[in-house]
């Protein structure tokens, strides 16, 4: 590991990368592979950022792994899914940039040694395309390859405080290292890969006061530093009004716990404190998160049975029901009434809701909420009727902010008048415009990889 914590930082590099998550390391490795000398600054004592807290899935389409499993997927289908999930409010050119570079990014990760272990269908995907792998392992692989080039140096516990700009362009950064302020020149520019701001209450209350009842998650460093630094230079934003929590987080979760589970996407229903369904459970988990915030105490319960429990996928954090059972977060009882009592719900009301739902499944029509699939119209509904019965108490959590700096398809940061801020680039959770209204599982890690590489290429070839 060539990470350093000392203050003997070179005063000059080709590229300065701010933030040591996947976007930062993808940018650093890409730049190094093209001959650039890179300094990467990470505010926290460890690298990994929000990446290593994520569900570990990548939205790729048309991969060999999909083909080997008989899943037909294409770039056009991915494009259409992304646009539709985003309510067509996402920037078409950014979606296009993702789609056109995703296969190359997949192959690049694979060649670095990232082996995707399985594929599952998740929110926003019309076919299974969430390629999953432990995200810490992915990050470590990419970081190790970056350091192995000999051209990337990482400085941990070294926050970047300001961007330096003269009349023409961004020429460097001001970092804080062991109590000293150091100015570093970046000849080819600066890539902001600092992530979102789900750990900055002030920014959340500025842009998303309606999410007050939601939990917060994200890397501890996700305080919007990069957003603020670019904003200081007049950078424009996208999608700020679409910040939404994600449904499915266990009430016991702390900000660094990823206790998110989606039995709904395997067939569970979601009920509120009155044991009544409140939403079409096949919708995007962001939309379900909104619906959950309107329920009493902002809480819901995913209710499922043995058959659905067995559809869990060990090793995929958001679908590993058995693991959560072992940790006591999934609870199980022999009857629905006992389950209701355990959760503090009215037993008769829960039995009634489940009975009503099962009747809908039988009749092939969900009269209450129009659910027509397990997830995004995909997968046949199944009854919840095979004991024992399971429940997963769930809140909405602001996992990531999915909005931020306006960039063009080459990841150049744009100012409020639509002009590029010269030599300033951004990638990953810090950018806006890619997601639009809602989020597809696997696109956060996907865009970190894809856009990190694009940002580095733009910077070096400018």
């Amino acid at each position, binding site marked *: 590991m060539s990470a350093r914590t000392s203050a003997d930082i070179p005063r000059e590099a080709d590229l300065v990368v701010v933030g040591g998550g996947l976007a930062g390391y993808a940018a650093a490795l890409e730049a190094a592979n093209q001959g650039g000398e890179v300094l990467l600054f990470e505010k926290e004592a460890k690298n990994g950022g929000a990446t290593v807290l994520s569900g570990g899935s990548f939205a790729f389409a048309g991969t060999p792994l999909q083909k080997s499993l008989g899943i037909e997927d294409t770039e056009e289908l991915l494009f259409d899914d992304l646009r539709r999930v985003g309510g067509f409010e996402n920037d078409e050119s950014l979606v296009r940039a993702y789609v056109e570079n995703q296969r190359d990014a997949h192959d690049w990760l694979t060649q670095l040694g990232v082996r995707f272990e399985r594929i599952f269908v998740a929110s926003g995907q019309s076919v299974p395309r969430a390629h999953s792998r432990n995200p810490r392992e992915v990050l470590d692989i990419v970081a190790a390859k970056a350091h192995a080039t000999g051209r990337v140096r990482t400085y941990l516990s070294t926050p970047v405080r300001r961007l330096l*700009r003269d009349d023409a362009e961004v020429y460097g950064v001001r970092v804080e290292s062991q109590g000293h302020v150091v100015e570093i020149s970046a000849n080819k520019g600066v890539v902001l890969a600092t992530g979102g701001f789900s750990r900055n209450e002030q920014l959340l*209350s500025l842009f998303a*006061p309606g999410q007050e009842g939601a939990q917060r998650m994200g890397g501890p460093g996700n305080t919007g530093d990069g957003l603020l630094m670019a*904003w200081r230079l007049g950078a424009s934003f*996208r999608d*700020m*009004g679409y910040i939404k929590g994600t449904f499915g987080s266990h009430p016991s979760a702390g900000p660094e716990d990823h206790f998110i589970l989606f039995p709904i996407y395997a067939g569970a229903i979601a009920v509120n404190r009155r044991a009544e369904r409140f939403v079409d459970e096949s919708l995007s988990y962001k939309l379900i998160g909104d619906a959950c915030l309107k329920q009493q105490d902002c809480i819901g319960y995913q209710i499922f049975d043995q058959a659905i429990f067995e559809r869990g996928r060990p090793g995929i954090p958001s679908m590993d029901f058995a693991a959560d059972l072992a940790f006591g977060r999934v609870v199980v009882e022999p009857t629905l009434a006992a389950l209701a009592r355990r959760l503090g719900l009215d037993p008769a009301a829960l039995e009634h809701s489940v009975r009503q739902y099962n009747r809908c499944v039988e009749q092939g029509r969900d009269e209450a909420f129009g659910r027509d699939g397990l997830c995004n119209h995909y997968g046949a509904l199944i009854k919840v009727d095979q004991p024992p019965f399971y429940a997963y108490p769930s809140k909405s959590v602001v996992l990531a902010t999915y909005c931020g700096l306006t960039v063009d398809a080459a990841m150049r940061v744009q100012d409020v*008048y639509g002009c590029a801020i010269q030599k300033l680039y951004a990638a990953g959770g810090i950018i806006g415009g890619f997601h639009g209204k809602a989020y597809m599982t696997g696109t956060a890690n996907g865009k970190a990889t894809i856009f990190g590489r694009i940002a580095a290429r733009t910077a070096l070839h400018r």
Partner: protein
Amino acid sequence: MNPPWTEEADVVVIGGGLAGHCAALELAAAGAEVLLLEKEERIGGSTVISGGSFAFAGTELQRRKGIEDSSEILFEDLRRVGGFRNDEAIVRAYVDNQLDTYHWLDSHGVVYENIFLAAGHSVPRGHSRNPREVIEILSLRVAKTGQVRTCVCAPVRRLIRSGLEGPVEGVLADVQGEPRAIKARRGVILASGGFSRNEQLLKLFAPSQEAAMRVGGAGNTGDGLVMAWHLGAGMRDMGHIKGTFGGHPSASADQHAVLLPIYVGAIAVNSNAERFVDESISYKLIGDAVLKQPDAIGFQIFDRKIYEKGTPGIPTMAFQMKHQMGQVVNASTIAELAKLLGVDPDRLEATVARYNADIEEGKDRAFGRTGLSTGYGKLTKIDTAPYYGYASKSVVLATYCGVAVDREMRVRDVFDAPIPNLYAAGEVMGGFHGSAYMTGSALGKAAIFGRLAARSALGALVQPGAGGA
């Protein structure tokens, strides 16, 4: 890097609404040379299409009417209405300077026609006056000083700042089509209003308000916000943008079309003829509630007694005028009224009957309404023909959020450092309202903060290189 200046002034004021005029007048009175730049062909901005009320407390006019009010009650009301999300220092700045500004306006000839109770007031304190007359009075006063040059058709394009940290030195503007570089020796005051006429900004910060109508001065496209943002200005309250209930579906964007019979006793129903909200809460919160109703529409239902409580000259209470315009409709029975409005007659009768029964028992079982407006004023039954109805949507009238300022109206950047020589007042600034809005506080803050910004600019010495750390 500075362009060769084509002209100069002590202070450049951007925007010719109430905030800009109050700033200019205050500056001129102190002997400063002012350039007031208005983008539109006419001065007046959103002020002249506003409801025309000023939230002042403890005034002679209130006393004469036997209304007990004070700066402290006003402070508490403002904080509470804003859900305690508003910046206490800025609310304090309003409260500490409001009575002085009342007297100042009075000394310039702005007298009020009436006082009424409206959203967020715990006692009547909406001091009303036709807002176009207010602007006319002030613009004459401004002209009389001989210190202010007012230019219309003069959009400002950019602020000019010295380097990344230095003071704002001037502006680039197109004055009647001619590009100008205007030096501002003592600074620039942004008084350019909000952005309720900028769809792109509304979509960025408030996509949930897509179904709401938009009203506001034609020039309210956020120019000042964007110019300050370009220099790294901070922002406040962006997530609290909400429509205001009471806009008629037929109204155009430059008509101030909000009518609020609810605050003198009307109820609001949806297209199923059912009530959906406590009608005495802030009209912004009712705006949110109506966006969730079918077709995002409601109907204010009232009777002759309530109709007669209307006040000609107060736009929000001008029932008679809206009746003449055909927006308020009436009928001799509730059932007939329902037919005119296109809602179910039986259900509307049932809803009104239930509401009347609740009033008799002294308790609104459905929504807990306890007063006409914010707990104040006694509820009255809707039982005296003819009956009136007014179709109402939510309207984004103003954005009530914007650039971060301190209590002296100095614009602050995202790291809370002042941007030297840049000030903001009126609707362009954020932090004052918080999560909801009190009637009369938009004009109030335009006048009060316009003057404060002027005083700050007068006190400012140009300090090259000063500012952000």
